[in-house]
């Protein structure tokens, strides 16, 4: 039995191997392969042309630069608690919002936290930054925080270079040196955490307090 029974022509002698090859299996194959090649070529051509057409027009670099998308003059915002009582106010001479990271810069921000059973806190600074989801407000440059006493007595007067407020968590923290005037006392610390709920204010790092004793 001949090995390649699939091919009908005889193998031919040495004289015409090329000729026999053309009208041998290759000729059958070309009936089969040629249309495929043509169609394939067309497919490649059309996809290439399609891609060429869809290519976006050459634009500015795709990464968004830190450009403002809007600003507000004399910005004044008030947040209310569940029972409708005002919880805090945030005002600024100017608020500039940035699209790429959804943060906002504030000029001369002023933050007032008040409410039942909470020591009233006022924070002011040269500049401020509101985080994307708005859960922190950073105060930067000449920061001053005044915290009223629950009972009588002068408010706690704090100055530092940087302060981060978490309005919804009633927390104010800084890792910068802090000076506090507390009545006749003057306290210095390397970091500070003030918790409105626990009504405490804690300085850490090596702290130093100086108290006058007037007679």
């Amino acid at each position: 039995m001949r090995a390649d029974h699939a091919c009908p022509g005889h193998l031919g002698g040495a004289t015409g191997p090329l000729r026999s090859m053309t009208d041998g299996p290759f000729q059958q194959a070309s009936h089969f392969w040629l249309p495929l090649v043509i169609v394939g070529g067309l497919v490649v051509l059309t996809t290439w042309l399609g891609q060429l057409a869809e290519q976006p027009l050459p634009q500015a670099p795709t990464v968004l630069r830190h450009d403002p998308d809007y600003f507000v003059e004399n910005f004044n915002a008030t947040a209310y608690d569940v029972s409708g009582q005002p919880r805090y106010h945030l005002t600024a001479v100017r608020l500039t919002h940035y699209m790429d990271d959804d943060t906002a810069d504030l000029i001369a921000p002023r933050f007032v936290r008040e409410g039942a059973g909470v020591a009233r806190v006022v924070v002011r600074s040269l500049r401020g930054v509101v985080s994307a989801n708005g859960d922190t407000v950073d105060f930067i440059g000449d920061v001053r925080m005044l915290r009223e006493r629950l009972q009588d007595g002068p408010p706690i007067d704090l100055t530092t270079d940087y302060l981060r407020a978490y309005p919804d968590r009633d927390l104010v923290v800084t890792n910068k040196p802090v000076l506090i005037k507390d009545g006749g006392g003057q306290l210095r610390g390397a970091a500070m955490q003030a918790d409105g709920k626990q009504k405490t204010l804690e300085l850490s790092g090596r702290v130093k307090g100086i108290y006058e004793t007037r007679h």
Partner: protein
Amino acid sequence: EQADRTRPVQIEADSVRLDDLNKTAVYEGNVMFTQGTLTITADRVDVRQDDKGLASGEATGQPVFMRQKMEGRDEYMEAHGKRALYDARTGIVKLIGNAYINQAGDELRGGVIVYDMRTERYQAQGAADDSSKGRIRAIIRPRTTQETGAAKP
């Protein structure tokens, strides 16, 4: 020294917590309390203020150490106890819990010792509120003749 009580108080510590509710400043961690020649070292000092400045301080430690120069002479009072209550107005310090005081060589031990900075006198009280048996032990250093001689005007 007498002038100590008019001097500003300086307190250093690892941390301080301003407590609105009981209007105190709580200093904690290696606390150093100095006022003129008076120095107190403790683990914790609670300071209370009134409108005229520092009113009182309560120190606790293992133990609280106290040291102050005597008026007009180069001798010191040293004392320690578990707790020390200092009234800045009256200049009275109350040492509570294995209290000990050494004033220019004279020693006194007891449950509670009250020291008056103005008069530089101290008295020991039976320690009703303290675990020790309330015994008081004093050692009075004999004065040498020159000292006693010098003391008489």
